[in-house]
């Protein structure tokens, strides 16, 4: 018990003294997850708008599939991207394996279903007459979709933040495709797993505290945004 207390004290010291390794890992985590969140948002918002706006055969089924993928295991996404990017895989020629880019790709794939699904449900919450209103005021299809997205902006931002929360807290995909190389692809979650196995509890706890704080901040942000509507 005393040992744990000591580890906690050391952990807090590591944070307040801005230990270079802690800062480095935290920054990398933020950058990788922010990049995948932005990438996923760039895909999900327009695509969600199109799916929600247009009527086509199999729309209901497609939305069901997207919702099923919310809970896809992170290691499965990791494995899939691993197979695609590994030297023998179809995208092996790009030499992206064990790079931060590979981690961004994996995390993007991981959070696209959640973000897309939440975008679609945010858009379906918009008054149906907004569409007719924009069209009757002279909007073309893209202008109409954009107007509907703006109406749902708070709910969409909440979905994007939840996507970020899932990206930064996952470990499986980042480890499999990134490889957890120190100073290169080591992020908060992979570092915590490794250091706890190695018995470096102070470092693991410091990183854990930072991760929990981030999760908390994201959730508070989601709540604040959702309360706007």
């Amino acid at each position, binding site marked *: 018990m005393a040992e744990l207390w000591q580890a906690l004290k050391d952990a807090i010291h590591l944070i307040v003294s801005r230990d270079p390794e802690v800062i480095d890992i935290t920054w990398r985590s933020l950058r990788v997850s922010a990049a995948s969140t932005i990438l996923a948002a760039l895909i999900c918002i327009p695509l969600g708008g199109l799916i929600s706006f247009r009527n086509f055969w199999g729309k209901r089924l497609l939305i069901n599939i997207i919702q099923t993928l919310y809970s896809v295991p992170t290691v499965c996404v990791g494995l899939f991207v691993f197979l695609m990017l590994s030297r023998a895989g179809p995208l092996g020629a790009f030499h992206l394996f064990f790079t931060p880019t590979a981690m961004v790709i994996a995390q993007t794939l991981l959070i696209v279903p959640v973000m897309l699904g939440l975008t679609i449900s945010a858009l379906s919450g918009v008054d149906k007459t907004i569409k007719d209103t924009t069209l009757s*005021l002279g*909007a073309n299809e893209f202008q109409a979709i954009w107007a509907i997205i*703006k109406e749902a902006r708070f709910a969409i931002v909440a979905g994007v933040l939840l996507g970020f929360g899932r990206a930064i807290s996952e470990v499986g995909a980042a480890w499999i495709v990134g490889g957890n190389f120190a100073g290169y692809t080591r992020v908060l979650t992979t570092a915590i797993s490794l250091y706890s196995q190695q018995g470096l509890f102070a470092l693991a706890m410091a990183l854990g505290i930072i991760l929990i704080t981030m999760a908390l901040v994201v959730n508070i942000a989601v709540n604040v945004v959702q309360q706007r509507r």
Partner: protein
Amino acid sequence: MSLTEAIDVNQRFGTKAVLKDVSLTVETGEVLAIIGPAGAGKTTLLRLFDHLEKPSSGKVLFDGREVTPRLRTQVRRKISMVLQKPVVFDASVYDNVAYPLRVRKYDRKAIPEKVNTLLKTVGLDGYQKRNARTLSGGETQKVALARALVTDPQMLLLDEPTANLDPVSLNTIEGFILKFSRERATAIVIATHEMAQGQRLAHRIGVMMEGELIQVGKPEDIFYAPSDMRVAQFVGVENILRGRVATNEGGLAQVGLNSHSLEAVTDHRPGEEVHVFIRPEEITISLQSPSSSARNSFSGEVKLMALSGPYARVEIDCGFTLVTLITRRSAEELGLKVGQQVHASFKATAVHVISRAGSG
């Protein structure tokens, strides 16, 4: 050439026929009211005019041309529609009214002046920065109207523009509609369930019922010469009697109603089975035998009297029932009460006769 024209338009949703063989033209500069009860298909007709829907069969032309999917946005940009229960964007009043100009890539520098001028016209100057969602019903309606008018449309479609408005807002909005019609020669089509509104605003009225456009004409034709029973009932002709033309001399006919007979101005020939329409406000009531100008006079007993605002609705049994609408004051001056013997009289020109063949 008409500005827009519906030709044999049918609209079905599933198995339900919402519009049945509707043909109608809208001319530049006119105010056309589409009146009819709820569910008659008025909204669907307006949506077809705005090309928000495609008809199941038939065509809707604009400027004499068919509107292909490629032309749809371009044509819509010459039209504005205010939907029933309009929605405003979750944005400022200014951004709401500027929206149609922005989607048209209107000159950015000219937008503020146009928007502000129009907001002033509809009486919302100073509201520019307010979030439009925080406005009252009447204010929302004004924003929707300003937003529809900011582009100087060639045609304005208004779906129940004054439903749920207080009388003051109603007057203001009707005022704008008339003003724009006069100043800009905008073709205006108003769907309304309120026939009095059609009468106040429109040059022409179309009556729709159960998806059919039954009669189109000048307001006075619709109100005094309805072409069929359903129109007559809807526009408040409370006296609908069955009869047969007995004689007709130069347009002045005797129409037999069971044991009675009345005079009417009509071209229907002797022997024809007819319906006779008499508007309740065309009938006057007196205690003594009436003056000579009225050709029709019947004596009878007051069966029912109901006051409604400044009017009194009186039912008289003269062997057949005549419903009359007189002012409350004249009812009081006559001292009318149930059971009293009175004379009901009306002119031969107040009687509208239609053939009974085909109209039940």
